């Protein structure tokens, strides 16, 4: 890269440091090409910068191209242009005021990514902690309402990169549906008589050129119902990460979390920055790792939300272990209602990965007849596990009736 020929700074130090700064940002996951650095130096060179703020906004307008990168940039700017004495001296012409760092309770979003990019060795030790698991609560169901708050570890740049890769490979079971509407296309397909006629009018009908159309395809909406009760709490970080990635990739994704109550976190997950999204989810939900009331929350969903979000042939992804204690009849009724209002109901059960899983639990037996697919998920600790479980089309091994056969139940 040729930044040496920028003449404004004969010693070239500022240019060099901007280069290092850009590299820091790149390591923190921002997409920056070499030309961005050249532009950046040019912009600084245009002059007119009178203080640190101007310098900040000059770099900002060239290096940041997405809203969600603003956090990363802000953190990196504070850390980078503070921690290095050499730079500080050189920046004296930009009135080097120290950014005042107030003590804060929660780390700012994206801080983990930036500090990892700046100090790779140090951050290796503080691998993200998983949310604590209460062993005695796992794999038991209770309708007890416990209101808890949750704090998720921040995502590292490596995790995000892996997630993106996994998501790009994944195909949802019903990825696209053909609609009855047509759209015009520029290649040879079905003849579009109406457009041909309209277009020929321009030439007074002398020239009639063929125009084409084809049937529109669209992605059906995806509605996610995920269990966040105690028995599922160890997976919730992975879930939310997956839902966030899914909401980013597709247009209509609605996400609901349930334990003892139902929470719609669709809007929280629309935040482009994953850390902010997780934090907002954590704030919105009041019943983390509590008990489960599947029937009641499903009832609430069916009553309040199903008409609003299950239109246009939605697919429902249900993620729960199905350990539930409420009345069979009610649960069966609500499951049935849900099943009848969507195109496809897919149940993802983390219990299924254990060998010798039997659909013996009462809740599972009640729900099974009402789902279209019953899929296992091998490792829920990583997002790739979820992607591989949900990807791909229907196979007969997902047929829920496999698990309902009497010999399996008896064994």
């Amino acid at each position, binding site marked *: 890269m040729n930044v040496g020929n920028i003449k404004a700074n004969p010693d070239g130090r500022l240019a060099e440091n901007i280069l290092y700064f850009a590299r820091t940002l790149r390591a923190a996951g921002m997409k920056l090409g070499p030309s961005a650095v050249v532009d950046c130096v040019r912009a600084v060179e245009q002059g*007119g910068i009178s203080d640190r703020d101007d310098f900040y906004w000059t770099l900002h307008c060239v290096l940041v*191209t997405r809203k969600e990168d603003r956090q990363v940039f802000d953190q990196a700017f504070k850390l980078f242009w503070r921690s290095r004495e050499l730079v500080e001296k050189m920046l004296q012409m930009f009135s080097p005021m120290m950014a005042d760092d107030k003590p804060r309770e929660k780390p700012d979003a994206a801080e983990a990514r930036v500090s990892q990019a700046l100090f790779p060795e140090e951050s290796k030790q503080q691998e993200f902690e998983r949310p604590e698991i209460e062993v005695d609560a796992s794999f038991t169901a209770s309708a007890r309402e416990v209101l808890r708050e949750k704090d998720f570890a921040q995502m590292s740049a490596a995790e995000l990169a892996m997630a993106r890769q996994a998501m790009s490979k994944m195909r949802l079971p019903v990825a696209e549906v053909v609609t009855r509407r047509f759209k015009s296309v520029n290649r040879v397909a079905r003849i579009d008589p109406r457009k041909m006629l309209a277009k020929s009018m321009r030439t007074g009908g002398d020239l009639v050129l063929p125009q084409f159309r084809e049937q529109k395809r669209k992605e059906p909406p995806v509605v996610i119902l995920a269990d966040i009760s105690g028995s599922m709490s160890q997976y919730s970080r992975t879930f939310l990460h997956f839902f966030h990635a899914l909401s980013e990739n597709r247009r209509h994704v609605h996400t609901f979390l349930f334990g003892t109550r139902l929470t719609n976190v669709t809007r929280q997950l629309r935040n482009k920055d994953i850390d902010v999204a997780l934090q907002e989810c954590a704030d919105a939900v009041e019943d983390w790792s509590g008990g489960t009331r599947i029937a009641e929350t499903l009832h609430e969903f069916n009553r309040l939300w199903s008409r609003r979000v299950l239109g246009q042939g939605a697919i429902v992804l249900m993620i729960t272990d199905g350990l539930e204690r409420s009345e069979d009849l009610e649960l069966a009724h609500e499951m049935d209602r849900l099943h009848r209002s969507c195109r496809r109901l897919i149940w993802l059960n983390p219990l299924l990965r254990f060998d010798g899983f039997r659909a013996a639990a009462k809740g599972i037996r009640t729900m099974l007849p009402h789902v279209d697919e019953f899929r296992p998920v091998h490792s829920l600790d990583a997002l790739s596990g979820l992607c591989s479980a949900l990807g791909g089309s229907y196979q007969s091994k997902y047929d829920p009736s496999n698990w309902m056969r009497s010999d399996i139940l008896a064994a």
Partner: protein
Amino acid sequence: MPTIPASIDATEELLASEGYVADRSFATVLYLALKMGRPLFLEGEAGVGKTEIAKVLSSALDRPLVRLQCYEGLDVSSAVYEWNYAAQMVEIRQREAGGVGAGDSVFDERFLIKRPLLKALEGKPGKSPILLIDELDRTDEAFEAFLLEILSDFQVTIPELGTIKAEEPPIVIITTNRTREIHDALKRRCLYHWVDYPDAERELEIIHSKVPGCEESLSREIVAYVQRLRQVDLFKNPGVAETLDWASALIELDKVAIDPETVSDTIGVLLKYQDDIAKIESAEGQDILKEVKLELASA
């Protein structure tokens, strides 16, 4: 004739002279965009003054404004140029009737219908137009790719005529509402700025400059209330445009202060979603007004 500002301060003054209240960060970006001849890429919620900036620049710098409103299915023939087929046909018939041979081609500039992008390339030096590409996120990606050529070289190729290149590139302003992500290749060629909701002080200034008839105490209340609303978890936060509409509405109703009744009568000016309105009309919403009043009284 007004020229392009020579410093960030001058840019701020220029905007202020047209009644556009901008913060320092925005003035910096705008200054750099004008100075470096780069397109300015503005993102932000609806109603924060993205489109307005193009109009302000056009009148401040005394240059024509060429606006390209994007929509799904926008194609080259409605964005760049189109041949006037009917006129061409008439010309050919006339030539036939007059016994004149084929002679000159009918692919002449006389038969070219110029659309916004082509018009924007016609600027004379020092007088090049402001090209506003509004709501770019509404077009499809194919059109975005087409824009790349225009935005990097400021030229258009018409097969029958050749390449048309701008004598002086236009000042380009692109706005999006983020209904989808714009490709990096396009963003890379621009200077990016996220237009945020203004803070209370700046919003007050905006009301002063845009709704001059609004009394000081009323505008303070309006700003405090709207700022407070933006902190509530709403489906769509009220933008600056809504604040201004509300201020004018309250003046029309001869109000000098906000009271719960006024709020519930005029809330439709600020909030446009039924869920949001229901939320504000509940007890929680009533508390907001009380708190705002208390705050103002204590300040």
